[in-house]
């Protein structure tokens, strides 16, 4: 198969952490559109296309005036819905003048934007990411902005964890992963990859955090919600204490969380977190878990980062070279199937490059 690159537009995509958006103009490229984000005086987040209607200067180079943005070139002003409210040197306003406003909601500590038909922007369609914000889950999280790979490569990475054995040896990687069977199931919106490794020696990361000697039952239940979110239920419990049957009381449980947003056809923003249910008040532990993931090149996500960018470079150098698939890719391929289905519903070809613009201009 060739490598599909496209992304649906009728979906909510994470664009920023809520705490990053304040009374300043924050530019960001989302789904191949330049967007400027800011917080209105009522606390809600506004998102406008980051290009003045007049001469395309990024509005993010202008200033915020109350809830409106003034272009830094000729002073045109646009309100939070994108309507022009001021034009220089004339007594009227051209009725056609506007910039695109993107529906925005803040949920689960993230700001989500709807990049397609605004009439379809139902906040109930924000993918489930509650582990990122709700008790008992604790974690800090971060973002790889402008990660230099197509967003689907990140999904592929997370939907098959056999890579842990090779990319993350010494922390969470373990031969048991490659030896254990897994089951892939799906609905019309989600794909689940479930793997149990029973009665194994815990890998170093989990041994340390369980803090109890002996063999464990280890689980990885990865849930993808189309088109862009992965939540991986992972953990270990003392072997034979019934974790697989539903009793995880003799174990520790975490979720790796990923909201992946296309930036361009060959780059993405990767919002990540690792949340846990043990020692919730231990801030040192929170910090060390963050460092275990991203630490100046030494964390597990730094390792993924290197692999993903190298993979994209290789694809760019040989764009016609197909990918061949293994049995382990079933989860990723179901994820692609759901994404492609969303694109087909929008009348778009998943294998085509992302659109430059949609009909709304």
């Amino acid at each position, binding site marked *: 198969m060739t490598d599909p690159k496209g992304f649906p537009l009728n979906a909510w995509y994470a664009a920023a952490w809520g705490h990053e958006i304040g009374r300043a103009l924050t530019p960001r490229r989302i789904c191949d559109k330049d967007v400027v984000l800011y917080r209105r005086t009522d606390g809600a987040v506004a998102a406008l296309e980051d290009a003045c209607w007049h001469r395309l200067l990024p509005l993010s180079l202008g200033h915020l005036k109350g809830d409106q943005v003034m272009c830094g070139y000729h002073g045109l002003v646009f309100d939070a*819905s994108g*309507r*022009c409210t001021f034009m220089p040197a004339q*007594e009227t306003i*051209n*009725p056609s003048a506007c910039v695109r406003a993107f529906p925005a909601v803040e949920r689960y500590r993230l700001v989500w934007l709807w990049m397609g038909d605004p*009439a379809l922007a139902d906040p109930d369609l924000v993918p489930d990411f509650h582990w990122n914000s709700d008790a008992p889950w604790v974690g800090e999280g971060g973002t790889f902005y402008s990660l230099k790979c197509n967003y689907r490569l990140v999904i592929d990475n997370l939907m098959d964890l056999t890579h842990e054995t090779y990319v993350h040896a010494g922390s969470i990687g373990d031969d048991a992963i490659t030896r254990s069977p897994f089951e892939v199931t799906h609905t019309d919106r989600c794909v689940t990859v479930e793997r149990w490794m029973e009665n194994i020696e815990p890998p170093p990361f989990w041994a340390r955090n369980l803090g109890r000697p002996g063999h464990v039952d280890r689980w990885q239940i990865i849930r993808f919600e189309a088109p862009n979110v992965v939540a991986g239920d992972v953990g270990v419990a003392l072997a034979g204490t019934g974790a697989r049957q539903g009793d995880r009381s003799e174990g520790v449980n975490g979720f790796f969380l990923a909201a992946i947003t296309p930036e361009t056809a060959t780059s993405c923003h990767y919002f990540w977190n690792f949340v846990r249910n043990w020692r919730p008040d231990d801030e040192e532990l929170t910090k060390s878990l963050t460092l275990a993931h991203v630490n100046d090149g030494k964390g597990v996500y730094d390792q993924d980062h290197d692999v993903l960018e190298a993979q994209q470079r290789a694809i760019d150098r040989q764009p016609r070279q197909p990918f061949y698939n293994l049995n382990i890719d079933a989860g990723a391929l179901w994820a692609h199937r759901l994404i492609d289905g969303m694109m087909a519903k929008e009348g778009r070809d998943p294998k085509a490059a992302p659109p430059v613009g949609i009909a709304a201009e």
Partner: protein
Amino acid sequence: MAATDWQPARLRAARALTPDIRLLEIEPATPGAPAPPGSHLGVAVMIGERPDTRSYSLLDSGADGLYRIAVKRLPDSRGGSAYMHGLEPGARLSISGPRNHFGLTPGRPGYLLVAGGIGITPLHAMALALHQAGARFRLLYAARTRRDLALADGLRARIGDRLETFTDDEGGRIDLAAAVADLAPGGEAYLCGPYGMMEAGRRAWAESGRPAQGLRFETFGTGGRHATEAFTVRIPRLSREIVVPRHQTMLEALEAAGIAMIHDCRRGECGLCTVKILDADGTVDHRDVFFSEAQKAANAQLCTCVSRVVGGGITIDTADRAG
């Protein structure tokens, strides 16, 4: 700016909605994504021997792969509507777009749609979209006679009593001030219709004290306060006298006579094609939305792409200082 996305299309079907309004169903060679309400289609037309383009609002999103437009045959038209009325089903067309200069803001607490005559076309698409979204809206649709309410029956079947119709011959008149007052705070109004209705709508909106950007309107640039007639333009600096015929705009006539002009929108919005009025023995029929009412009253300039003169001629100056 000129469209660059021309593609072939075919007139699949056409039928008369009224004696002078025709519904056309256009099938593009390559179906596109559904068009947001307010979008228009560019159509290449022939005016006599000369190719030109016209824009027509889409009646719906075209989600079934067909673009539906309604075209009124205008006696004052420059020839586009006559061309569109003469097309036989199966005719090959060249189309561009759809594009949207009249976008509908989603998520408002209420909407007031006001249509006059053939101005119903973009509001038809908006009403269907708002109805589908479950939004609160009213569509006020006025025409000269009941027979001229070309799209009322189909609309009523789909949006019920959210459609209210008014006809001149039955003494019906839209009370714009009351309609604006009735709109939820934060609501928006969308207008499309003849010049007088648009002016009345703008006035009612301004008097209500609502924010200016909450009133949206689309201009045709074809109608004014006065009937269209030929008039003479004198340019003393260039020693020229140019006749603007009924079926040409002043901008077109000036350019055809070799006068260098700049322009962009050709809809009376951008203000680039304006010229200075030195003297007018006729009445200037300002048909643009670029100048404010005070500026129009002062009569110092006019937008040549849409405005005209009746009952006499006009003396102007252009930017040309080469001579």
